[in-house]
C-alpha cells in the first residue's frame, strides 16, 4: 500500500518536472544540431557549435542584446530607487488619510492588462513627443519602470515591515539625523530586498515584449522583439543557441545565489549556537 503510493507520488513528480523542463531541454539539445531545419536532427554533423559562432557574428542580435541589457539595467536601478522611496513612505510615514488607496494604486500596474498599460503609455508618449523626443530606448525604459516599480515596492515594503522600528529610533536617539538613520541603518537592513527587487525588475524588463511593442520606435529593437520577429519568419537554430546561453546565465546565477544563502544560514545557526554555548 505504502509502496504503491510512493510510486504514484514519484511518477507525478517526474511528470511535473518533465512538463516544465522538456521544452527547455529539447531547445538546448537542438542548439547543437547542425541542420538548418529545426525539427530534423542531423546526426552526421552534430553536435556542433556552429550556431553559437554565428550568433556572435550576427551584429543585429548583439545590438538587440546590448539595448535590452542597457534598458533592463537602467530600468532596474530607477525602479529600485523609486520603489524604495515609495515603500518607505507607505511603511514608515505616520498613518495618513488615503494611505490604503495609495498602497493599492502603487501595486495596480501588476494586475493591469499589459495591453492597456502599453496603449495608455503609447498615447502619453505621443502627446509628450515634443518634450522627450521620438519613441525609442528612453520611452521603453520609462514604460518598463512603471510596472517594475510596482514589484519593487511590494518586495521592499515586505522587508521594511520586518525591520524593527526601534532600531531606527535607537539610531536617532544616539544622535543620527533622519537621513543618516536611513542611510546607515535602514538601507543596510533592507539591502537584500533591494537586491532582489533589482534582479526582479531587470528580468521583468529583459523579457517584456507586449508593452515594449507599444512604446518602441523604429530604431530600437530589444532582444525579445528581435527573437519574436525572427520566429515569425520561421524558427532558426541560432535562436536556440541564444536561448541556451540565456538559460545557462540564469541557472548559474540561481545556483550561486542559492549556495550563498545556504552558507549564510548555516553560518548564522552556528554563530547562534556558539553564543548560547558561551552563556550569560
Amino acid at each position: 500500500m505504502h509502496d504503491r503510493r510512493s510510486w504514484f507520488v514519484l511518477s507525478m513528480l517526474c511528470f511535473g518536472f518533465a512538463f516544465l523542463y522538456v521544452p527547455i531541454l529539447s531547445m538546448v539539445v537542438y542548439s547543437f544540431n547542425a541542420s538548418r531545419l529545426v525539427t530534423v536532427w542531423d546526426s552526421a554533423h552534430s553536435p556542433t557549435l556552429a550556431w553559437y559562432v554565428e550568433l556572435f557574428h550576427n551584429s543585429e542580435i548583439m545590438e538587440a542584446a546590448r539595448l535590452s541589457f542597457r534598458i533592463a539595467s537602467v530600468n532596474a536601478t530607477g525602479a529600485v530607487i523609486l520603489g524604495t522611496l515609495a515603500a518607505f513612505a507607505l511603511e514608515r510615514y505616520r498613518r495618513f488619510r488615503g494611505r490604503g488607496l495609495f498602497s493599492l494604486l502603487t501595486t495596480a500596474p501588476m494586475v493591469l492588462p499589459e495591453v492597456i498599460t502599453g496603449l495608455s503609455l503609447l498615447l502619453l508618449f505621443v502627446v509628450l513627443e515634443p518634450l522627450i523626443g521620438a519613441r525609442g530606448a528612453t520611452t521603453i525604459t520609462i514604460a518598463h519602470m512603471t510596472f517594475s516599480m510596482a514589484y519593487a515596492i511590494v518586495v521592499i515594503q515586505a522587508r521594511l515591515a520586518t525591520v524593527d522600528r526601534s532600531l531606527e529610533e535607537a539610531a536617532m536617539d544616539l544622535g543620527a539625523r533622519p537621513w543618516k538613520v536611513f542611510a546607515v541603518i535602514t538601507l543596510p537592513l533592507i539591502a537584500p530586498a533591494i537586491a532582489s527587487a533589482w534582479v526582479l525588475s531587470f528580468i521583468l524588463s529583459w523579457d517584456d515584449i507586449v508593452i515594449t511593442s507599444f512604446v518602441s520606435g523604429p530604431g530600437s529593437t530589444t532582444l525579445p522583439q528581435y527573437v519574436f520577429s525572427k520566429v515569425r519568419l520561421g524558427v532558426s537554430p541560432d535562436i536556440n543557441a541564444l536561448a541556451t546561453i540565456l538559460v545557462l546565465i540564469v541557472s548559474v546565477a540561481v545556483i550561486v545565489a542559492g549556495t550563498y544563502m545556504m552558507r549564510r544560514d548555516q553560518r548564522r545557526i552556528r554563530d547562534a549556537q556558539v553564543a548560547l554555548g558561551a552563556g550569560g
Partner: protein
Amino acid sequence: MNAVQTPAAARGGAPYVRLEGLTKRFGDFVAVRQVSLDIARGEIFCLLGASGCGKTTLLRMLAGFETPTEGSIWIDGVDVTHVPPYERPVNMMFQSYALFPHMTVAQNVAFGLRQDGTAKSEIDGRVHEMLAMVQLDGYDKRKPHQLSGGQRQRVALARALVKRPKLLLLDEPLGALDKKLRERTQFELVSLQERLGVTFVIVTHDQEEAMTLASRIGVMRAGEILQVGTPTDIYEFPGSRFVADFIGSVNMVEGRLVEDEPDHVRIQCEQLGCMVYVDHGVSAPPDAPVAVAIRPEKIQLSREQPPGTDNLLAGRVTGVAYLGDATRYLVQLPNGFQLRVTAPNVSRREERFEQDDAVWLSWHPSSPVVVTR
C-alpha cells in the same frame, strides 16, 4: 498625606527633569493623562505599573519619539517638548535592546560617538573603557546574534551610556534575564549609576525590581501617576487602595469610621467581625467608608490568646506554604473571611503552625493603613 515625598526642589536645587501636565492621546484613547512630575539630578526614578498603563509612552515622550498632546517637558531648565530625539541630552535603553544587527559590538557602542564627530582615537578609547565596564572586553568583534541575552543587554547599556548622557531612560532593562542574573545586574546598575552620577528613569512592571533600584517610585494606573514616593513610603503608606494592593501582598478590608480622634481611630469592619484600632489620625469625614490594609507580615500568630482586646481575632489555619525564608499561612475567620499571614523563619526549630490549628491573630495599632480612595 505624608505619602507624597517632597520633590527635589524642597531638597535644594531645581528639578533636573520636570513634566508639566503631560498628556498623550492616540485618537480617542488617552495613554498618558495629566502627568506632572519632578525628578532630581542623580536620582533613580522608577515608573511602576501594570502592562498597558502608559509607562513606555511616557518614556518615549521623554526620549522624543512621541510628541505630547498637551503639556511640556523640561530637562535641566530647557523646554525640550518639541526638540527632536537626536538633539536631546537623553539616551534610551530599549525594551528589545535594539542592537544594530549588521554592526559589531564595538561599532554598536561607537555609533553614538560617531554621530557627534568625535575623533577616532577618542572613540576607540571610550568604547573599550565602556566595554570593560560592562565586562565585555574581548567581545568587540562579535555581532549581536553571536551574543547571549545577558551579553546583549550589557551591550545595549554600554551603547546608551557611552555618550555620557545626563539622563538615561531604561525600558524594562532586565526583562529578558533570568532571576539570578537579574538580581546581580540590578546591583550593578545601581553602583554604575552612583559612579557616573547619571539620572535614571527606569520603567518596570516588577515591583520587587522597583523597590531594589529606585530612590523614588511613581505608581501608574491607566495613564495617571497615582502616587510618588520612596519605596518605603509607597509600601508603608500607600495613598490608595490600588497602590496598597499593587505593591506587595496585602489584606484589604472595607470598613466604616466609628470613632475619629486626632490620635487614634476605630473602624468597624464587617468582614473581620471586629473593631480595628489605629493609633494615628485619619483625614476622612466621620462615618465615611474606608479601606483598611494590613500587610501579611505585620500580623502575628500565636496559640495562646495575647493580652488586650483590640486588633485581636481568632481563626483556623487553612493553608500553609513553606517558602524557606518565611512561611505563608492562610487563616480563616469564623465568618469565613480569609486573611494572609506571613511569618519569618528566624530559627530552624521555630514553632510552626499546621493545617487546621486554632490560632490567634493580632497586630500592632500602627500597622493598619487606612485609605479613603
